């Protein structure tokens, strides 16, 4: 009796300085879950700590791999914050034996628009890329400087 092959589950993260968006895919076409989680500080601080939220997200869907975009390079403070969150995600994922891959932001937009610089609104009506290229493990940005390290 042949055992049917189950497609991999992938959790994609878009980490921002005070929140992150996520989507969970099973195989290339099936979107299982999506949403936004906030981890504000100060007066409007969220009650559930970020680490707990990340752990819950990893436990809920047990993905095979977590992919994320590298932090933006524009503002140093944002880059540092985002880098810290990515580091936490990587740590939590490694505890559960889940791989983490961080891709360059340009690589993600290039997948949809090629060399064109497209916004999400321009990308939306376009057909989904038939074959997602296999990116090499990309550089994990250092929080303090723009240097890149290999993760994996």
């Amino acid at each position, binding site marked *: *009796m042949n055992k*049917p*092959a*189950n*497609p*991999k*589950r992938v959790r994609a993260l878009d980490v921002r300085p005070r929140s992150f968006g996520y989507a969970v895919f*099973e195989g290339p*076409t*099936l*979107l*299982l*879950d*999506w949403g936004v989680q906030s981890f504000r500080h100060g007066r409007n601080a969220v009650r559930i700590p970020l680490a707990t939220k990340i752990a819950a997200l990893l436990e*809920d*869907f*047990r*993905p*095979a791999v977590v992919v994320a975009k590298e932090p933006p390079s524009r503002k140093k403070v944002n880059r540092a914050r985002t880098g810290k969150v990515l580091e936490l995600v990587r740590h939590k994922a490694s505890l559960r034996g889940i791989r983490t891959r961080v891709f360059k932001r340009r690589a993600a937009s290039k997948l949809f628009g090629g060399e064109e610089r497209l916004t999400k609104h321009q990308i939306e009506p376009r057909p989904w890329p038939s074959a997602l290229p296999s990116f090499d493990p990309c550089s994990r940005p250092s929080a303090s400087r723009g240097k890149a390290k290999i993760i994996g």
Partner: protein
Amino acid sequence: MATHKLENYLRTYRKRSGLTQREVAFLVGCRNGAQVSRYEKRRRLPPLRTALACEAAFGVPVSVLFAGLREVAGQAVGERMLALRSKLETSTAQGRDARIAAQKLRWLAVRRPLPPGNTNTTS
């Protein structure tokens, strides 16, 4: 590395429908939205009546909604079928009992465990 199916896909179908947990609870006859949350997070297993109500509400077969459970149950049944077959083959029944055992063996040969339901959840 292939991942196992999730125990259930209730959250996926609920989010696609745009319904809240409270609204799904109302549809399937649960106490409140928290109970639906427990089912979605696999902290509780819904009773058969609720599972069938979910099928009716989302229009998706139970075997697809609870694909992971279906997979595990299917594998367990398959293993038990093999065990039962070997038990029947080694039995030393005579006469009528032997005929009945042969009939069961024929049935087992034809009746393979159901493949995990059509878990194509893209519908």
